[in-house]
């Protein structure tokens, strides 16, 4: 294996788990993978079999017990919209919804998510129709460098699901677990308030 081999190629070629195995065999890894018997993970580390529903698609996966949910989403399901920055549950870039609640995917083991439903930033838009939050983030110039944006979106989605018409302090509290190194917090708060107003008018 040459040095030019990318990390993703490496994962594919070594065939970790069903998702990577599916990629080798030409299956669409973003499509439904409903196998009763997942392929064994060739690993010296302890592994478990889990089922996850990610963005409404079911997956059966072999995972190492030590893999975080963020690692599985990014490295094994190819859902790289979920970002990892601090990898210590402090910055919020890895925020996803687990059973509808915002969680840090870097600080939750994939085995603990067995049987649960996950929503990542890739699942926010309905086809070409962006989520109102995504539209508002664009309109209000929320993202600057953009690295924290998917986490901000997911934290905001969780907030609006729970509190459809939040006050500015509620929005600030809802986004308190997400750092933005560009410090564009005011725009993010504006965008969430605008999206909440729109969702209210359109009865989403």
């Amino acid at each position, binding site marked *: 294996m040459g040095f030019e081999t990318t990390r993703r190629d490496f994962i594919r070629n070594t065939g970790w788990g069903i998702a990577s195995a599916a990629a080798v065999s030409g299956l669409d890894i973003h499509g439904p993978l409903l196998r009763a018997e997942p392929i064994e993970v060739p690993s010296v580390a302890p592994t478990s079999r889990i089922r996850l529903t990610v963005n409404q698609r079911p997956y059966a996966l072999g995972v190492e017990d030590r893999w975080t949910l963020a690692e599985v989403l990014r490295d094994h399901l190819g859902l790289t919209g979920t970002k990892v920055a601090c990898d210590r549950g402090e910055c919020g870039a890895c925020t996803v919804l687990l059973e509808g609640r915002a969680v840090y995917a870097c*600080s939750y083991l994939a085995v603990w998510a067995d049987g649960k439903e996950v929503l990542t930033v890739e699942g926010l838009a309905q086809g070409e129709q962006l989520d109102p939050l995504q539209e508002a983030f664009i309109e209000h110039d929320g993202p600057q460098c953009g690295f924290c944006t998917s986490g901000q979106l997911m934290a905001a989605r969780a907030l609006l699901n729970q509190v459809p018409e939040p006050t500015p302090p509620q929005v600030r509290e809802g986004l*308190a677990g997400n750092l933005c190194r560009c410090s564009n917090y005011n725009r993010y708060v504006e965008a969430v308030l605008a999206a909440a107003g729109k969702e209210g008018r359109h009865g989403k």
Partner: protein
Amino acid sequence: MKSFVNVNPKSLDEAVAVLDRARAQGKKAALAGGGSDLLGMLKDHLVQPDLVVNLKSISGLEGVHREGERVRIGALTTLDEIARHPLLVERYAALAQAAGLAASPQIRNVGTLGGNVNQRPWCHYFRQGFPCFKNGGKMCYAVAGENQFHALFGGGPAFIVHPSDTAPALVALEAEFKVMGPSGAKIIPAEKYFILPREDVLRENVLGENEILAEVILPAAPSGLRSTYLKIRDRQAWDHAIVSIGAALEWEGGRCRKARLVLGGVAPIPWRVPNAERLLEGKSLGEALARQVAEAALAGAQPLAKNGYKVPLAKATVRRAVLSLLPAA
């Protein structure tokens, strides 16, 4: 992180048996409630367990339940649920407020009451793997180092502060902890649960290697009980307390019948200040008495080189807390 086996016990008894068996086999086991704190420690190689026991797989360990006049809270109840629970918000405000001020929304969604109480210290020397007392070494780097966030009381040989927000609230509310072990359940008053470094520098509480904190029991809330939790942070979100206070005052006819004042962020355990409590008892409260109470609460503080600022900060916090609990006229 080093590899480990995740175990999903179905009951507390099974979980205790797993811990017991691991110990007998010379294996290390770690308990995971929400797991947020544990995962950070695993990634930084501060703990390297052979087994991770996932308590989330045990049904019945979460939820807030009334039992007569008492309230039982499963140790796996999330901080978010506690912060929003109407009964806790109304009758045990200090606990609900403490849970709501802990960490960030994402952590509160998975973080549990048991995990918040049992989290390890957040001293930066400890967390960065310095060979300090807490990491099994032979010195406390904070003594001659960066000690802005370290203890004013009860320090030595380690000068960590207990990081939990809920712990001072639970001590103030006279909660009890139900601990499950190989020989069954035992009840420990919250105040007796936490231990100073001079008792055992490697631990912050009495929980044994094969024991699990299963439940927190709140006593009946007498009429006239008012409680609060105030937390002072560097930034107004996602930070540990520089100083905090869990305060519970019982009022009768405009006079304080009983007071419990417990400081956070100033000692290796939730730090009760009985001399300040006694000043309040039997009295009606005004600004002058609140100042005396605050002075008494910080009497005997022993600041290190860089944390003296905590003394006036803590005094102001005590004063504000007790004045906020004045009975409705």
